[in-house]
């Protein structure tokens, strides 16, 4: 079995079989982290470029570790805003990079659709590490992997996703994946931060956190950014926490074996109480560990295809 595309641009383009293949492969990859020598030669001699137009420690490090564990040569480029204002277009930046023949480009960019532009017009295989408000496929995959580790399945679970739904690429990717795998997703946030036609995404929208969390198997908290106060989305983080913050009392409404997730970085006391983040139901640190295995799986599965122009 193989992935159908040379790129990983979004969960929207994957079918359930491909998702299953990635998760199974990731399972085999987790064992490598437990070895004394955490390296296998699978991507030896391959060059992977991590091109990050938005700052990120967690995702970039995770990809770097994954690439190194597969013995790939890795190059991380944090593109400062100034080079963008110098007038070089995204296409030119990447074409210059391609002159040095990377095998794959892992890219995070602030504009939705940036990786799609590159996939159409450049030669390398593109892995989307987050594009604007659109998708963050490896995050959703590692979230699914984490859920499966605990619940042994995805279908039929009630998953509550709470936070700034409008601006979240993690939400969109997770909704695609969980729907394809048969879970029931409840999307909760202030009405000001809900995307148009949210119900058409195949989720139950609600502005009531109690309703979303009631009997939930999984609670996924999204980050709320402080600048949302400037667009009149929320009056203050204090009021946000009052209405939508995950407190121990609220967690008690979920199933007794609920797991609590967060893509990070967390704003303690804004979307999630510290006691909950560090509490017994939290699997937040496992998500990070699983991220490496999932990214190793994605790199391995995509690396077998040669870089060619479409």
């Amino acid at each position, binding site marked *: *079995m*193989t992935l159908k595309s040379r790129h990983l641009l979004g969960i929207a383009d994957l079918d359930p079989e491909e998702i299953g*293949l990635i998760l*199974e*492969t990731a*399972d*085999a*990859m987790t*064992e490598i982290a437990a*070895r*004394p*020598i955490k*390296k*296998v*030669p*699978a*991507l030896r001699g*391959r060059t992977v470029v991590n091109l990050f137009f938005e700052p990120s420690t967690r995702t970039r490090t995770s990809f770097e570790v994954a690439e190194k564990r*597969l013995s790939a040569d890795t190059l991380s480029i944090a593109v400062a805003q100034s080079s963008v204002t110098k007038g070089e277009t995204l296409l030119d930046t990447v074409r210059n990079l391609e002159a040095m023949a990377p095998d794959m480009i892992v890219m995070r960019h602030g504009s939705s659709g940036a990786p799609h532009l590159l996939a159409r017009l450049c030669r390398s295989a593109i892995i989307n590490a987050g594009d604007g408000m659109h998708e963050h496929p490896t995050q959703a995959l590692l979230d699914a992997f984490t859920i499966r580790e605990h619940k042994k399945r995805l279908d039929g679970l009630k998953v509550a996703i709470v936070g700034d739904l409008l601006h979240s690429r993690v939400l969109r990717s997770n909704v695609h994946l969980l729907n394809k795998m048969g879970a029931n997703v409840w999307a909760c946030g202030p009405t000001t931060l809900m995307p148009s036609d949210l119900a058409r995404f195949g989720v139950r929208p609600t502005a009531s956190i109690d309703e979303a969390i009631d009997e939930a198997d999984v609670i996924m908290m999204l980050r709320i950014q402080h600048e949302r106060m400037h667009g009149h989305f929320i009056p203050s983080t204090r009021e946000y926490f009052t209405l939508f913050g995950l407190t121990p009392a609220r967690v008690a409404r979920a199933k007794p074996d609920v797991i609590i997730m967060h893509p990070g970085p967390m704003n303690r006391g804004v979307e999630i109480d510290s006691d909950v983040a560090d509490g017994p139901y939290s699997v937040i640190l496992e998500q990070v560990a699983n991220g490496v295995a999932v990214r190793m*799986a994605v790199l*391995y*599965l995509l*690396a*077998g*295809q*040669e870089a060619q122009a479409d």
Partner: protein
Amino acid sequence: MSQVMDADRMGRALTRISHEILERNRGTSELALVGIRTRGVPLARRIARSLHEINHEHVPTGALDITLYRDDLMRQPLGPQPVVHRTEIPFSIDDRRILLVDDVLYTGRTIRAALDALIDFGRPRAIQLIVLIDRGHRELPIKADYVGKNLPTSLKESVQVRLQETDGEDEVLLTEPAGAEES
């Protein structure tokens, strides 16, 4: 297509190999079995059971997936990558004599990959190789220490090992490619 080994012969070959192991290693201390996925794993388990029946000692057994060490990985353009499965070696291999187990020894490349993988796990005192069938045509200087059956073959033929645990019955088949004479 012809059957070159039936269930009976397979059982006796594995028993014979178990005795040879004990004789050569003077007992089972420091031994460990590592089966190469997929069919090396049930074969390793059978040998472990057999050894236990003979001298009542328990020999730890593990499973090794060599997919990520293959030398032909990433070389098939636009082809599917083989599916990776978990390696499970729940013991230290340092200072042990490792008995590597596989169903068919052919070019030797699988064993080469297995040796690379094992070295990443630790430093065994020695590695010995057990195969059920040796069909010749080595491309690397690899030799089995214990062989169930030597089976001379031509390059066009293919050897298929079927085991109860994975395929429902025990036998070894030798098949001619399509277009050859019927037997």
